[in-house]
């Protein structure tokens, strides 16, 4: 097993106290002979937007299902909003909104009727408040105009929105979204991001799984990277991104001249599509720019390079697949 890259205040703190909305320890799930999830220690800080990142079959959905008490772990423990799962489900789940494994609704009912049915099972909704809560949720996801239509005729994006609406029927302390932007067009994806941002602003903890890196990078404060059923990295997004070598990207029309100038000043650099990438391990940003300007290189723009989430992801997941790795398991295999 590869060591887990962990940064920030959460590193190596098994008793992190009340600041965690969800916590797993040594989580393991075995379906017949296939290991879906192994040794998952996940910490979701309260008020965070945590992105769960991983390729298909990396155990994201299985972990979420155990977190929500839908699946009993083979080993390990799960805590959700301070309650042990799955036993604490009656206490924890009323305050958790979830969209897991795609939206599930009845095709013969309208969107509104489907939501009413879900709403009638929500403990924290008063019976008299159901119609209002349903309309509010429909408006919030932009489905008000299609609420009377049968679910059967909904587009993929509308189905996804209805699923989101059911997670937002009641004000929650935590919202769990499994691949929420599946099937959404760019406008829809942006709306989901806005909703997540609103939830974050309200202080709601959000756990969102995705295999779309840009989506996670744009919406999350924290990130957990899963690969082959284990967490290979987790922590605050900014810190994770900066854990690589710092670099400065300089855009200039004189690429070769810039490289020569850098070499003369013993600064490592290379040409990238974005511009000249100067390594900041041995020099500071002002030193790099000074060196370039002195050699007559036209500097149009200089910015600090962040290790893209994509780089980080590639680094974390490749390292693992080169070694052993667990057999690939289809998510949700029963």
């Amino acid at each position, binding site marked *: 097993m590869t060591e887990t890259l962990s940064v920030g205040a959460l590193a190596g703190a098994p008793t992190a106290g009340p600041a965690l909305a969800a916590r797993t320890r040594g989580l393991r799930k075995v379906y017949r002979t296939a290991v879906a999830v192994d040794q998952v220690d996940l910490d979701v800080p309260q008020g965070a937007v945590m992105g769960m990142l991983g390729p298909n079959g990396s155990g994201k959905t299985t972990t979420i*299902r155990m977190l*929500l*008490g*839908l*699946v*009993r772990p083979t080993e390990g423990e799960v805590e959700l909003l301070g309650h042990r799962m799955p036993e604490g*489900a*009656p*206490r924890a*789940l*009323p305050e*958790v909104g*979830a969209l*897991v*494994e*795609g*939206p*599930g*609704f*009845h*095709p*013969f*009912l309208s969107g509104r*009727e489907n939501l*009413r*049915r*879900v709403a*009638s*099972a*929500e*403990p*924290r*909704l*008063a*019976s008299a*408040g159901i119609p*209002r*809560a349903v309309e*509010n*949720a429909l*408006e*919030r996801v932009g489905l008000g105009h299609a609420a009377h239509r049968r679910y059967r005729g909904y587009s993929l994006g509308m189905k996804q929105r209805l699923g989101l609406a*059911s997670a*937002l*029927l*009641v*004000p929650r302390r935590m919202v769990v979204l499994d691949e929420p932007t599946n099937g959404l067009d760019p406008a829809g994806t942006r709306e989901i991001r*806005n*909703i997540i941002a*609103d939830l974050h602003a*309200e202080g709601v903890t959000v756990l969102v799984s995705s295999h779309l890196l840009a989506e996670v990078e744009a919406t999350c404060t924290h990130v957990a990277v899963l690969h082959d059923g284990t967490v290979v990295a987790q922590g605050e997004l900014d810190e994770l991104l900066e854990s690589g070598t710092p670099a400065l990207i300089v855009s200039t029309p004189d690429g070769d001249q810039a490289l020569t100038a850098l070499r003369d000043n013993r600064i490592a650099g290379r040409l990238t599509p974005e511009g000249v990438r100067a390594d900041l391990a041995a020099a500071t940003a002002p030193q790099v720019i000074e060196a370039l300007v002195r050699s007559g290189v036209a500097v149009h723009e200089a910015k600090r390079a962040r290790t893209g989430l994509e780089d980080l992801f590639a680094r974390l997941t490749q390292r693992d697949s080169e070694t052993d790795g667990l057999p690939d398991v289809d998510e949700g295999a*029963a």
Partner: protein
Amino acid sequence: MTATLDVTPVERWSVPFHRLYRAELRWIFRRPRTLIVLGLLALIPVIIGIGLTIAANNEGPGQGGGGGGDSLLPAAAGNALVLPLATLGVTLNLMLPLITAMSAGDALAGESSVGTLRGLLLAPVSRGRLLLMKALGVATFTLAAAVLIAVVAMLTGLVINGTGSLFTLSGNTLSFVDALGRVALAAVWVTLQLWAVGAIALAISACTEHPMLVVVSVLAGTVVSTVLLLLSAVDWLHPFLLPRSWTAIADILRDPIPADQLSEGAIRAVCYIVIGLSLAYAKLSTKDG
């Protein structure tokens, strides 16, 4: 964008059960399939009534009809009391168990296949309450089906034969109220048998995601049981087979009502219900959602 804040949450951890039950009934009886099945069921007594009358007119009383090996059918011609029981008896052999299985199949397997069972578990509805809600839903639907058949058959009989035709098989004429009581007793007894089928069907339904599998299993179980009941070589098995007492429904039309077979059938049904629901709970409580 903070619209959901308008709804003040209630501080409680579970929904009042009657709300779940009402939502379940709404779901069952809004389903086009349910309405179509009930509509078709209502046609059966009308068709049997009309068919028997035509046959009786052609062949003379007591000769017409037949079919399904049910001895009641010929007697139903010209008798407004026998028609409801004969129809219940005929449909109990196959039709009613099938629609019970359909309803139980939709209840868990069907919900599981479209992903809505997960939604209920996440609400959360505890697994025990979920089973109770589903069992009551199936029970209500089967009760509705049996009562519908009885009422339509009674009306058909009265329209065709008038209120003066309420004889028992023993030859006594009953008052309208007494006749209504006998029909109600038959409907309740049939419903109890259907609940037994429904409990087993729910147990199967908890194990699969395919509602069709539930229907096929119940169909196979009913047919195999009926065949086994014809084989004297396995008569040690007969007391355990639910359809054994299904022909006893005719006893309700005798004076006085011979209760032994009817009550044996009722006890057998209760045993099936207990076993079926226990199995369903055992499966549902450990099922991955």
